[in-house]
């Protein structure tokens, strides 16, 4: 096993044979460790870009009594993992704030699934992410980013989030590469189980 984290160059090109890129979204509230998780497992230094959206003002400028056009710019981080000679996985950190709903719609389009990262000190920050994912029908798992000794059991976290039993809930340390890798594997295992059930009921 090589440790690429210590010697990552700014630009690591993909193999010329790469032809299928996949997406996984890491969602959660501000400061919960989304970028940390992307950084711990990405083969490139996480990159940052922005999406500018122009939209008709919907209830934004109501005080002015006009429905003006609003331009909003949202920055987001991403990293990548080459899976084999053809497949590459992109990890996107999705800002959890409600006002960025339109970016979520973009990021979710065609995504394999999502990881909702939660901080037990601010569980309420992850409600919106969970709500949007359920609304979109995007499969997801929840990962508790553990800073030090946990004060709550995972069962308590599940109750507090009103998370149904069929959604996996795991512990992780977003700073740790192996731990972040285990979270992604848990997500893909979950997707695989869902997908296999669907195949069988076809």
């Amino acid at each position, binding site marked *: *096993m090589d440790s690429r984290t210590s010697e990552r160059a700014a*630009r690591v*090109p*993909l*193999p*010329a044979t*790469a*032809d*299928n*890129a*996949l*997406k996984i979204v890491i969602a959660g509230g501000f400061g919960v460790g989304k970028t940390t998780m992307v950084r711990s*497992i990405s083969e490139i230094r996480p*990159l*940052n*870009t*922005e*999406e*500018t*959206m*122009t939209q008709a003002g919907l209830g934004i400028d109501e005080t002015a009594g006009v429905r003006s056009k609003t331009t909003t*710019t949202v920055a987001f981080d*991403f990293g*990548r*993992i*080459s*899976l*084999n000679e053809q*497949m*590459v*996985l*992109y990890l*996107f950190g999705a800002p959890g704030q409600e006002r960025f709903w339109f970016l979520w719609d*973009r*990021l979710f*389009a*065609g995504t*394999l699934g999502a990881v909702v990262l939660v901080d037990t000190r601010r569980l309420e920050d992850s409600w919106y992410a969970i709500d949007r994912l359920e609304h*979109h*029908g*995007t*499969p997801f798992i929840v990962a508790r980013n553990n800073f030090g000794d946990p004060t709550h059991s995972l069962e308590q976290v599940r109750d507090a989030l009103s998370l149904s039993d069929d959604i996996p809930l795991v512990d992780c340390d977003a700073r740790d590469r192996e731990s972040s*890798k285990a979270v*992604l*594997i848990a997500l*893909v*295992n979950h*997707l*695989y189980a*869902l*997908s*296999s059930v*669907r*195949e069988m009921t076809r």
Partner: protein
Amino acid sequence: MTRRPVHSEDPDRLYTVTGGRSRADDSAFDLVTLIVSESEPSAGMQSEHVRILTLCRRPTAVVEVAAELGLPVGIVKILLADLHDTGRVSARHPRAAHSRADLPDPELLKQVLVGLQNL
């Protein structure tokens, strides 16, 4: 080849870069569509096109092109559409694309699992 007029009186850089257009056909490129150069930069090409052709000698996702150029994704999609329309780049679209509430193929997921386990 027709050249678009440059709106030199407009100070907005992004407006100039795209010849005044503010959006591309959104369905054309996904954030992770891989772009591959099919030609070398030539004299007289606008600098952003040159940078894209240089960057995409190896497959590069739309979102990475945006990050490397320091331009918003929407603007980069417009630039890529220009290059794609003239055959200077090709696009490798994601094949896991599926509709809402649908799930990817188990076979594809198995390959993802193996890839992750081998990290």
